[in-house]
């Protein structure tokens, strides 16, 4: 799957400006970007739902604009909103999609059963989807996009809106799929998610790729984790910086901003107790100490020098009909 210089504009918003993406077979590409970066637009073009204004896109070497029908036979799409029929049961939803893929009644039924088992929905399979939890719906939604064993799977923000537990479960599930060799394009706003699931990550901002590479490679460029402490008395902040210097690895700098003092760390929560002891020893009272992993915001700060999102010319995402 490949896109070359993809461009798309909606009235006065340039959603994509020359987007280049490639996924090698049986790998996962994580497309990481803030809200409004153009992730969904790219997915919708690749899944034949939207025509690009410029550039080209191929799935399995097939042009999505010229031969949408052939592309549709090879892809599975799990969009941002769960696309399930709430009035049907889980099994009926799967069976229905199988029939629309022309698998035939017998094969559709069989595939529905397999997927219910695989996605841990066997018990709920004969209940109407209306009563499903958010996590169950999302699982069913993904199962529906796998009915015809697609050669490329598109997952558009599969964990957005899930509670932390369902999110972890979803990560395991996606990791399993990926282990089976499903070529996958996964979009996300969550750095940790891309890190966990993707073989390669493309960071996109305002419709084009601003960084691309393996997760480790990128994390290095993005800056690692850090420990932040909040001292009770602002007057102590300089003392805290002083006290933390010895814990700093080579080339690292302790920084302060108001009452918050930040210590970059390469790995590990094991430094947290040492930080607390150091403060104790220096007789500095602290209100808070926390380990912070780099977030998408940090990535953007590092890559672009400004924070994500608040790019002035981007309207907030409108509700699509």
């Amino acid at each position, binding site marked *: 799957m490949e896109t070359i210089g993809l461009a798309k504009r909606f009235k006065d918003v340039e959603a994509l400006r020359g987007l280049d993406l490639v996924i090698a077979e049986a790998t996962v590409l994580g497309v990481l970007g803030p809200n409004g970066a153009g992730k969904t637009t790219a997915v*919708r073009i690749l*899944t*034949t*739902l*939207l*025509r690009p204004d410029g550039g080209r896109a191929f799935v399995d070497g097939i042009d999505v604009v010229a031969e949408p*029908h*052939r592309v*549709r*036979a090879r*892809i599975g*799409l799990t*969009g*941002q*909103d*769960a*696309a*399930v*029929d*709430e*009035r*049907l049961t889980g099994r*009926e939803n799967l069976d*229905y*999609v199988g*029939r*629309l*893929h*022309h698998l035939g009644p017998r094969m559709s039924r069989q595939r529905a059963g397999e997927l219910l088992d695989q996605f841990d929905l066997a018990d709920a399979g004969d209940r*109407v989807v209306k009563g499903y939890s958010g996590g169950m719906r999302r699982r069913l939604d993904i199962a*529906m*996009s796998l009915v015809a064993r697609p050669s490329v799977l598109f997952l558009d923000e599969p964990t957005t809106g899930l509670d932390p537990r369902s999110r972890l479960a979803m990560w395991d599930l996606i990791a399993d799929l990926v282990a089976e060799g499903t070529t996958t394009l996964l979009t996300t706003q969550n750095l940790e998610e891309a890190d966990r699931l993707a073989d390669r990550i493309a960071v996109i901002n305002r419709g084009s790729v601003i960084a691309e590479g393996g997760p480790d490679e990128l994390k290095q460029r993005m800056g690692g984790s850090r420990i932040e402490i909040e001292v009770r008395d602002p007057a102590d902040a300089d003392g805290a910086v002083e006290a933390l210097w010895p814990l700093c690895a080579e080339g690292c700098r302790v920084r302060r901003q108001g009452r918050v003092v930040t210590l970059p760390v390469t790995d590990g929560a094991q430094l947290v107790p040492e930080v607390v002891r150091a403060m104790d020893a220096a007789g500095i009272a602290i209100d808070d100490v926390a380990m912070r992993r780099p977030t998408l915001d940090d990535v953007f700060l590092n890559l672009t020098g400004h924070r994500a999102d608040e790019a002035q010319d981007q309207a907030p995402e409108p*509700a*699509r*009909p």
Partner: protein
Amino acid sequence: MLRDTWTEATRNLRVVPRSPDLMIFALVQPVMFVLLFVYVFGGSIEIPGFATYQQYLLPGIFAQTVLFGSGFTGAGVAEDMQKGLIERLRSLPMSQSAVLIGRTVSDLVRNTVTFAVMLLVGFFVGFRFEGSIPAAVAASALLLGFGYAFSWIMALIGLSVSSVETVNSAGFVWMFPITFVSSTFVDPSTFPTPLRWFADINPFTAATNASRALYNGYSPGRDLLLSIGWAIGISVVFGYLANRRFARANRT
């Protein structure tokens, strides 16, 4: 395409018995109208050529029932659009026109069931087939065909608005005038001129008159051809517009 249409239609029909309230709701209104018009106004309304007011009224009620039944099409289409299901369907290697055709066909089946219940209600209050059975069957088929045509109008509305609620209000905006300013309940010759003029060109008047004549053993005259023409014309024009709109929705 037939296979996809069948798959779509069965999806929609399968859920009908799961929400019997919708079906009941679709019947409450026409049943109330029957009771109201027959027992409250019925005594004071006499229409020449018809033995009882029932013989005149019921065909009109049947026509109104199938028309309102087509509202389900709009609501169903809007709901699929809202839920994102349409996005999935558009990414499948299926016949794209099967989505709307399956929807209208399943609503035709649903409408047929509602219609059958209303026929029974009609018999209950004294309505009879005064003509031949084939004529009565033709009259019923004509009305259902008319309901099918209006389903396409509702499908287009369902694709164009953003929520199920809007579809319902958008539907009533034109459904009420079209059914009331016609020969549905009373003879339009008593209307003031502009309304009578509207009632005369109203396709709903032609359909109601044609089926009323057939049920009562009269010749429907030119109303029959006229209403068949309307039903086919509306289906073709709005079927085309709705499918075009569907193909383009969100694709620009």
